[in-house]
Structure formats: structure tokens, C-alpha cells
């Protein structure tokens, strides 16, 4: 028995010693080419579509696998990959395969061939005002509050923003201030000689409107607040910040002075002082703490005349969005964009964000900061051919971006490894906004006739999860 054990043991050992390195090399992309009798290092392409089950083509060859599919043992080079599912738009990409590398398209969204819109509200609407982070948006038939509808996305129900007996029915809206995830917003408007600021709270079933004009001594540069602390509003002026307690109708003029930038998050106020130091303080503690950054901002990139918004502050990192459109970081690459940034939207608790200018959309991934220090690879422009980009929304777990560009809706693929890829969705009424809801997967807009419409771009969240699980 012992001899048998030894024979089997050494046989297995030998097999292991041969198989194990072979498997590791295979997993690293190495294959033996019997034709050339050489070992070559290959790459692979992974494709997963929503919905799954689409045919996969590599150049002109159709693969037996359907999505999700992994096309392995591909020699380095450029390939044209096509995904085709009857009833859906064909998706095609030029993919560069590199040795030992995988090029993954984890969430290829296949759009229906006939992308039809559904009318939500009939009538000639003029504008929509998204309230991101909530299930609500405002649909305006005119500039007067009387013609504003508060539309609940989840319930697919619209109600007038002001009741029949409201004082504010004829209040003419000029602009709306809103913070993501906040259930209140501030409306600025009124007559030419009687401009007002109204705080509208839509937390309850019936919106509550409060006139806070007296609490705003002059027209601020910005009005901001922390959604977690909606009673504390900060009116930002070039030289100081007024703090307003709306619940107590109290104003604290010049509460914060000598500031070059500010941000409000998680019950904390983050400030950049005139000498480029950072401090933070909790309102309830009323005590300032230094906000230590291991890497200070390069003073050469900070402008003395520009006011900055502090974005996504963390213990060792902040981003600054200047009013001139510069986007800066205290980590490499220090200057993400030097001018023209119109908006920034975060995903994944600040690790990833997109920023857009009138013509480009770029993605910044904090996971790539280390790489960025070597070659600035932390930022990737995913769309360069915009004409007049005004709004952008994350879609499908940040794999796509829904974009309002020059009165048309585009769906941009966040593809960091392939070529730029966008799909036209629909034209919208000139100069109006759009809104994309991750909860419903629909984009909401006014068509050229002013009808409030929606298009289902992405299957609802539960269905997406089902598709992805099928993929696994």
C-alpha cells in the first residue's frame, strides 16, 4: 500500500508541477501556437449586454457564445466587435487587445431599435427643473408658479406646486436653487422692483412656501446648504458668507469671513481661507478644526480672484471647482481642467466623478490617482464632440451618461478602454432641461411641442440586476 501511495503521490506531484505553471501562464494570457511553435501572449475581450443573449461578432466572425461572453486567446491588435440582438440597435466598437490584458464591456446597454417616448403630461410646457436626489421634478407651463407642476417620478403623478388660494400663484420664477438630495429648494423671482426669495419645502404632501427675502441682505453669488441640515442656508458673497437659520428666521451676517471657497457636507462646513488654508467645523459644535491635507494645492494654480466650491471633502483630499470653470485637486493631476467646467457630478461617494464643459465630458476616477501622478491617467475624456453640453446624469451604475447637448439627448458610454461611443436619443424643446432617473431608468424632457415626455433608456433597477445575475 505504501508503494502504491508513493507512486500515486509522485504521479500527482508531477502532474501538479506541470499543470500549475501551465494554468497560471494560461490565465495570464500565454498560449502555445502549434502553427508557429511559439508561445504567444494573448488578451481577451469581455462583453456583457443588457439585455443579455445577444450575438457576438469579432470582425466578420460570429462567435458561438452569446452575451455575456469572454473572447479569449486573442492575439494583440485592433478588432471590430459587434453585438447584435433582434429588435435592438446594433452595438459596435473598435477594441484594442493588448497582451495579458482584458478589455471589458461589462454593461453594454442595447437600446431598442424603435425608441419610443411616452407622453407624461400633455400641453405646452416651457421648462423642467430637476430636483436631483429626490423623486421629484418641476414642470413649468410658464414662469408663474401657478403653472408649475410637481411631478413625482416613482408615483408617476403630477400635482400643482401651489394651491388655488396661494399668495404666490402669480409669482414669476427667474431661477431655482437646489442641492442634491434636498427636499427643499429656493425660488428667486417676482416683479422687477420686488425680487424675492421663496423657500419651498416639498417634504410634506402639500408644499410649504416661506418668503425668506428679508434674510438675504443682497443678491448672493451662490446659495448653498447641506441636505442633512436644510434649516441652515449659506448665502455666499465674494467677501463673506451669511448664515441663515430659516426655522428661526434668523440671519448671521458675515458669519464667515476671509473665505476663498466653501463646501457643505455631512453636517460640516468646509472653508478655504484667504491664505489657502483649509478648516472645517461642525455647526453644532461651533468649533473650528484644521482640515489637514497631506498635499497642499499648488499655489500657482489657485487664483486670488476666483471663488471656489469645495467638493467631496475627505480627510486627505478635496476638489475645488472655481467660478471660472477650473477644476483642481490637491492630488495629482492637480489641475484636472483649467477652465470651462460647467458641472460636476459624483458617483460612488466621491471616488468617481464626471465633469463637463460645453464640448467634453470627462471622468475622474480616484482609484487611478496613483497612476495619475505618473501620467495624468486619472482623467479620461469620454466624449469630445459636444456642441453645447448643459446637463449630464449618471446612468446604469456609472457605466453611461445621459447628456443634454444642444437641445438633444445623448447617451454616452463611459468606456475607458474603447473608442468614444454615444447614441442619439431624442430632440428636446430648445433651451429646456432634461432629467434622468436611475430609479425608473427613464429620461424626462419636453419635446419640441412642449409635451412632457419620458423614454425608457435603461430597464428598471430590479430587471437590470436580474440581467446581470443571468450574466454571472
Amino acid at each position, binding site marked *: *500500500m*505504501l508503494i502504491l501511495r508513493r507512486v500515486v503521490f509522485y504521479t*500527482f506531484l508531477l502532474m501538479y508541477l506541470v499543470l500549475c505553471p501551465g494554468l497560471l501562464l494560461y490565465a495570464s494570457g500565454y498560449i502555445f501556437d502549434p502553427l508557429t511553435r511559439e508561445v504567444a501572449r494573448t*488578451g481577451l475581450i469581455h462583453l456583457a449586454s443588457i439585455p443579455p443573449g445577444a450575438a457576438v461578432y469579432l470582425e466578420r466572425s460570429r462567435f458561438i457564445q452569446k452575451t455575456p461572453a469572454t473572447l479569449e486567446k486573442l492575439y494583440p491588435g485592433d478588432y471590430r466587435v459587434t453585438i447584435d440582438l433582434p429588435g435592438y440597435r446594433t452595438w459596435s466598437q473598435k477594441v484594442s487587445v493588448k497582451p495579458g490584458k*482584458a478589455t*471589458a464591456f461589462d454593461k453594454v446597454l442595447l437600446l431598442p431599435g424603435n425608441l419610443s417616448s411616452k407622453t407624461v403630461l400633455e400641453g405646452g410646457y416651457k421648462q423642467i427643473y430637476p430636483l436631483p436626489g429626490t423623486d421629484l421634478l418641476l414642470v413649468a407651463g410658464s414662469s408663474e408658479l401657478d403653472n408649475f407642476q410637481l411631478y413625482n417620478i416613482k408615483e408617476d403623478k403630477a400635482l400643482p406646486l401651489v394651491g388655488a388660494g396661494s399668495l404666490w400663484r402669480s409669482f414669476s420664477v427667474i431661477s431655482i436653487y437646489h442641492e442634491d438630495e434636498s427636499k427643499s429648494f429656493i425660488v428667486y423671482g417676482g416683479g422687477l422692483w420686488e425680487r424675492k426669495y421663496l423657500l419651498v419645502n416639498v417634504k410634506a404632501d402639500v408644499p410649504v412656501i416661506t418668503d425668506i427675502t428679508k434674510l438675504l441682505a443682497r443678491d448672493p453669488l451662490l446659495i448653498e446648504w447641506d441636505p442633512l441640515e436644510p434649516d441652515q442656508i449659506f448665502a455666499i458673497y465674494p467677501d463673506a458668507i451669511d448664515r441663515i437659520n430659516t426655522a428661526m428666521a434668523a440671519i448671521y451676517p458675515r458669519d464667515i469671513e476671509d473665505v476663498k471657497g466653501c463646501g457643505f457636507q455631512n453636517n460640516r462646513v468646509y472653508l478655504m481661507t484667504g491664505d489657502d488654508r483649509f478648516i472645517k467645523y461642525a455647526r453644532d459644535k461651533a468649533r473650528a478644526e484644521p482640515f489637514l491635507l497631506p498635499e497642499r494645492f499648488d499655489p500657482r494654480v489657485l487664483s486670488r480672484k476666483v471663488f471656489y466650491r469645495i467638493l467631496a471633502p475627505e480627510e486627505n483630499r478635496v476638489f475645488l471647482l472655481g467660478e471660472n470653470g477650473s477644476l483642481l485637486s490637491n492630488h495629482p493631476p492637480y489641475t484636472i481642467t483649467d477652465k470651462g467646467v460647467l458641472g460636476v457630478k459624483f458617483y460612488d461617494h466621491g471616488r468617481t466623478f464626471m465633469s463637463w464643459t460645453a464640448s467634453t465630458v470627462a471622468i475622474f476616477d480616484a482609484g487611478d490617482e496613483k497612476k495619475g501622478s505618473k501620467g495624468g491617467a486619472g482623467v479620461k475624456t469620454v466624449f469630445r464632440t459636444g456642441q453645447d453640453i448643459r446637463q449630464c446624469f449618471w446612468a446604469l451604475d456609472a457605466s453611461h451618461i445621459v447628456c443634454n447637448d444642444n437641445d438633444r439627448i445623448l447617451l454616452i458610454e463611459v468606456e*475607458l*478602454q474603447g473608442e468614444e461611443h454615444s447614441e442619439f436619443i431624442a430632440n428636446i424643446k430648445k433651451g429646456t432641461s432634461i432629467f434622468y432617473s436611475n430609479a425608473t431608468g427613464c429620461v424626462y424632457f419636453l419635446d419640441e411641442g412642449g409635451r412632457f415626455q419620458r423614454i425608457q433608456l435603461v430597464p428598471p433597477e430590479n430587471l437590470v440586476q436580474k440581467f446581470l445575475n443571468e450574466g454571472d
Partner: protein
Amino acid sequence: MQFVYSRHQLDPKERRLERMFEMLPGALSWSIIVGMTVLSITHHLLASAIMVAFVLFWVFRLLYMNIFLVISYMRLHLEKGTDWMGLIAKVGLPPEALKALDPFRRRQIASVSAPDHRPPAPEELYHLVILPVVREGRNILEPGVQSLAGGDYPSRRVLVVIALEARASDAVKQDVQAIQKLHAASFLDFLVVEHPADIPGEAMVKGANATWAAKHAARYLREKGIAEENVIVSCFDADTVAHKEYLACLTYYFMITPARLRVSYQPIPVYYNNLWDVPSFARILDIGASFFQLVEATNTEKLVTFSSHSMSFKALVEVGYWPVDMISDDSAIFWKSFIHYDGDYTVVPIYTTVSMDIASGRSFGSTFVNIYKQKRRWAWGVENLPVVLRAFLRSKKISVYKKWMFASRLFDLFVSWATWSYLLTVITWLPMLFAGREFSSTTMYYMAPRIKDVIFGLSLIGLVICIAISFALLSTSTIRQRRSHMILHVFDWLAIPFVVLLLSSVPALDAQTRLMLGRDLQFRVTEKHRSKT
């Protein structure tokens, strides 16, 4: 070799050395678990490659073990029903009288034909069976006694000693007396030896009780004029039910083993007494333990005693009986003998079964807890490792090969016990879970899970073999089983990754951690329940 086995009687220098060795297995297991977890989070590619290599290694080892599980089972199956008493009668006969036997048996019997290997005559041999009791009632103890009385071997040559703890309850003591009264006439004698509590130098362990009883039996045997070398001692658990062939088979193997006094005899432990009375997770673990012993039985070079087993009484006396302060008396007695005889001590597998109870409780939760504690106690066998390493360091007579073989076996056994399940069920997926963009853009990210899936698929072969052997073993047992039991039993196996992780790996890691931190584990009698039917 003169060697102080007990760690409580060491001089400070030896104690420091042993303390260092005590820390090794736990430190190694924790290093693997923490190291691989950290590596999976920080160096995904490397961790993933290591896990591919490990999973392949694991499946090779699984298949390797399966081969010997099948062989061992076949041997068990073939030896079942052998006329052991007939074979015993033939030992010592001239070759021409053995012609009717198959070549295998002829070879076995011929191996002791040399004058210095010649065995004692069968009528000179006696069996001493020690049954330690502390809280086991009549329903647990009596079937074991009956199995000895009703076996193939003449029970009048069997001395049964109930090693009764003085701290046992009156009810248990009354049960023991009742059993003694009822069955004493069947045996050479039936002694009840009460082990006093709180003897200095002893811990509350089974070994102390068994040693006390064995010393008492030694006096008894001397008085009766029975030579120690003609006595085979079996130390069973109170719930052990020996197969009716057990003593006959043991006697045969004792007789045909040339170095019979330097050998322990290891049967295959099965846990069938209450198999269908316990939850599936309890069942599957102990069937796994039986399989492990079946596989180990084919590895006679490295075999170590486990649970109920037998040995020469002379050797037991010479090595100074079981350790009285160690929990793992079953394996400790092998190591004690191995060290005492300078490595000239082995274990011979005997292909017959002893059946025991699966640890259980009065509820699902208490069964889980009891099993956890029992497996931790089994895993506490790691306490032998520092003693063995210390002995290896001091001994000049034990060969380097044997030192290396057993030291590596012990490390392999205990470290794999504590870590493999965690590596296979948790770590194998971690690199993918924490994958950053850099790793997720490599071929390894996509290929490693697919390779591992194929390997895990291959491991199903092992699972199927285990299920088949499990059914085969069950079908040969005497326990009653319904068809529904058998169907359910297939599903028992599906839970094995989680059961092994929670009730085998974690208790093993717990035991190693306690030993590493210098915390003792008090012996705790495992609670067992059987249905009355």
C-alpha cells in the same frame, strides 16, 4: 528515551522551548489567513494567482485522497465477514497447513514464522477493555458492553474495566453497577474502578481516568499471573460499540504483527449509533472524520492513533500509561510511545469498525454548540505538536527522516485543518471582490474564476465518490434507515463547505489560537443523545 511528556513538569528552559513551539501552529495559520486576506486586498493579481495554484493543489489532494478512500473502503469491505477466529487458529501453523488460505493471508501468517517473531498462543492472550465513564447513562454504556459480550471473540478472555469518575452522579454509578451485575458473568471479570477527583498533577481529562483504571487492571493481572505482553488493551469511549469482529480481528493482527508490542492498532471509527437522531450538519462532519481515518489507514507510515484504539498492555505500562494532563489522550499515547521507543513505534490499521455517537444536544442550537466544542477538543490534538517537536529536538536516536516526516505531517494536518476551508470558501473570491481597475483589466481577472470553476467542478467527482462510499458504508451497517433518510443524506453533502468552515476550521483555529496565547482547554465530556427506539 527518557522524556518528560507533561508540560506541567518541565524545567524553565524546556518550558520556554515548548511555549515557543506552542505558538507555531496558530501563528502559521493566522499568518496564512491574514496574509492572504491582505494580499487579496492589496495585490489582487498575486493573490489570484496563488489561489489558482492552491485550488488546483487542493483538488489534486482531494482526488488523491479519494483514490485511497475507495481502496480503503474496498479493503474494509473485503475483510468484513472474515473468519478471524479460524485465522487465529492457523497462526503459527506450518506453511503446508496454510494452503487453503489465499496468498495474502498466507503471506501475513508467514511474516511471523521466524522464531523471534512468533506470537503467543491464542489461549495465552487476553483483552483488557477500558471504558471511561463520567456522565454516560446506561443507554449509552450498555450497547458497548453487549457488543463485547456478543462478539466473535470468546468474551471469557476479556477483562472489562469501567473507569468511573468519582465525581459521576449517583444515577450514573447505579447504572454502572446494574450493568456490572448483569454482564459480569460474560467476561473474565468486570471491574468498576473509581477514579478519585483532584489527584495532584492530574487534569480533569479522560487520560487520567483511564490511567487510574489501567494501573488497577495491571495489579489485577499480576495477581492473576497474566503476563502484560499477552494482554491487548483497548481504550474506548463510553459510547463505543465495537463490531462483533473487532476483538477477533484485533487478536489476529496482534498475532501476525512481528513487532506486536511496539504497535498500536487502529480500527475505523464510524459514528452511526445516533446517526439519524442528529441534524445533517452533525452527521456529515463525523462521516467526514470516518473517511479521514479510512484514508489515513492506507498511510501506515504516518498513521497516528485516533479515538478508540488498542495496543499492547506491556507497551502501555512501559511508556507510563496515558498522559494524565492532556486532553488528546488518543493521539498523545501514540506520541508518548513513539518518543519512548525512539521512533520504533507504529500504528497498524485494522479493517473493522467501532461505532460511536455523534455529539448532539437537546436542540438544534445546543447540538451546534456541542459539536463546535467537540471539534475544538479534537483540534486540541495540536497540543501534541510542541511536545513532539521538543522531543525531536532532544532525541538523537529518532531518524531525521522520521522527524521531518512527522513534524511536516503535524504542521500540514493542523494548519490545513484551520485554514483551507477559509481559503476555499472566502479568500478564493476576495481578489475579485476588491479588484481595482488595474487588476480587472488583466486576463487573470477573467480567467482565474473560470479556471477555479472548472477545478471546483472536478472536485464534484470527489463529492460523488464520498456520497457513494457514505451510502456503501451505511448499507453495511446494522442501523435501521428509511429511504427518506438516504435521500436526505445526499443533500447533507451539499452543505459541506459551510459546515466544514464553521464546525471544523473555526474550532481548529480557536484551539490553535488558545494554544498560541497560552490558554488551556478544559476537558469537557461531549453530550450525546440517542433516540430510545
